[in-house]
């Protein structure tokens, strides 16, 4: 299918869905206070934006996300490389890391709130912990699967230890690292919203919690759409960063 054809089909399907939803909701075929309808959702969005409620809460959530996610990339990649290259470290930490990785982060939220308070700090930690494990573990796997000829090539030209890492190991494991970051991104968003919904002072999750107890469907739908759009934008940004870095695809090898 060509790109333009895909675009047309995609747009038509989204429009058809919106028209159907509008019809079913507005005509009260299903109770509109439960499912709302697009024009009402849009009006609610405009209202929430104009009062500044959405903006100020989104800013809190965004800040928590950035403060947790950026360090998780840096620390996750560094730890992943070390785990792959330093065997005693790997043997020591593997069981512990696997246990923490497989446990749902949501289960840690209550204790993190006890440790770090109900404010933004506990959410930053949740984001960090949610994202770091997939990033670290993917990096580790990517590094240990770096092909021997790449290492041999850079060594044969007299690369030092640091150059072996920067010229062969990191670019060679970049597809796995990026996959880890994408995975971490999804988990971070889930953890962040769940953490805010559990207990918080402000944020998108806090708003969802509040409007949920008031049974306000339109507001909740607005917030869910905001989260979805944020996730989509993040994935698009990652992809463009990947293209700019000239990241290769391992399936082309």
């Amino acid at each position, binding site marked *: 299918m060509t790109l333009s054809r895909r675009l047309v089909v995609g747009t038509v399907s989204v429009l058809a869905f919106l028209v159907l939803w509008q019809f079913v909701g507005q005509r009260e075929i299903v109770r509109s206070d439960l499912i709302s309808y697009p024009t009402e959702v849009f009006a609610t969005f405009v209202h929430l934006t104009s009062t500044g409620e959405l903006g100020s809460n989104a800013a809190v959530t965004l800040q928590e996300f950035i403060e947790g996610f950026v360090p998780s990339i840096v620390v996750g990649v560094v730890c992943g490389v070390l785990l792959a290259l330093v065997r005693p470290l790997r043997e020591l930490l593997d069981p512990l890391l696997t246990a923490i990785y497989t446990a749902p982060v949501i289960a840690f939220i209550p204790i993190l709130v006890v440790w770090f308070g109900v404010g933004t700090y506990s959410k930053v930690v949740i984001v960090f912990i949610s994202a770091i494990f997939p990033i670290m573990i993917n990096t580790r796997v990517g590094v240990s699967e770096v092909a*021997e*000829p*790449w290492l*041999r*090539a*850079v*060594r*044969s*030209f*007299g*690369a030092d230890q640091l*150059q072996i890492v920067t*010229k*062969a190991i990191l*670019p*060679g494991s*970049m597809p796995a690292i990026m996959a880890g970051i994408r995975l971490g991104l999804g988990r971070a968003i889930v953890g962040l919203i769940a953490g805010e919904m559990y207990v918080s002072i402000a944020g998108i999750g806090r708003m969802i919690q509040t409007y949920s107890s008031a049974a306000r469907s339109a507001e909740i739908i607005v917030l869910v759409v905001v989260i979805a759009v944020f996730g989509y934008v993040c994935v698009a940004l990652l992809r463009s960063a990947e293209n700019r870095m*000239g*990241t*290769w695809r*391992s399936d*082309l*090898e």
Partner: protein
Amino acid sequence: MAHLEIDGVSLAYPNVRERSTFLALDGIDLGVERGEFVTIVGPSGCGKSSLLMLIAALLHPTGGSVRLNGKPVTAPGPDRALVFQDFALLPWRTVLKNVELGLELRHVPAAERAAIARKYIAMVGLREFERSFPHQLSGGMRQRVGIARALSVGPEVLLMDEPFGALDAQIRQVMAVELLKIWERDRKTIVFITHDIDEAVFLADRVIVMSASPGRIIETIRVELPRPRPLTLRSHPDFVVYRERIWSLLEEQVRSSLHWQAADDTPPLAQVP
């Protein structure tokens, strides 16, 4: 004094399981003159690739020494460059960036290294492909990139480890002719490993024949065929004589290595890269 001197070099690998050592190379003596093209043939597992890695100093001998211009080699250096059978290109780099690799690792400024790389890319006939990635190229083209990459650091000695071994028969003959053309321009010292006897004779000033494991030099044959050498040389009567002579030397070695493998089910230790 020869340009490259290999003096009583031995290489032993420890075999942990049997608490013994496996002798890969045994007392190799070889002097290569400046500008000489030497090819090394031998049965598989005779340690000929290991010998090349010792010259590159990616491996270290357990006995003897390797000297270049009289100085012992202890680490990889810009005076020697390797070309590998599997090309060993970096798939995330374009042709240009692959050729720049050696210069980049030595901190040559970006503009200068691009200019040098382009010169060698043109020399191997890939001018239109400098923005291509390795996966977009054929095997023969990839190895041209490998050769350009090795030449770009300006080595005195080119070390080639079965460079055409992964290519099909027609392409490898064409590549051999092209390699000779490049070599005849600046006459670098070349040590070329192959298991293809025709290729060894076609390229060489001297063919070194090695024994089955442990690798020793059993014969050195000077190839007195005129240069430049056309593809048709392979059917020249003298060429055939060289080929028969080397084959008769190798036949015995191949048989003994077969026998050796049958007697002891464990294959010789994997060749270290």
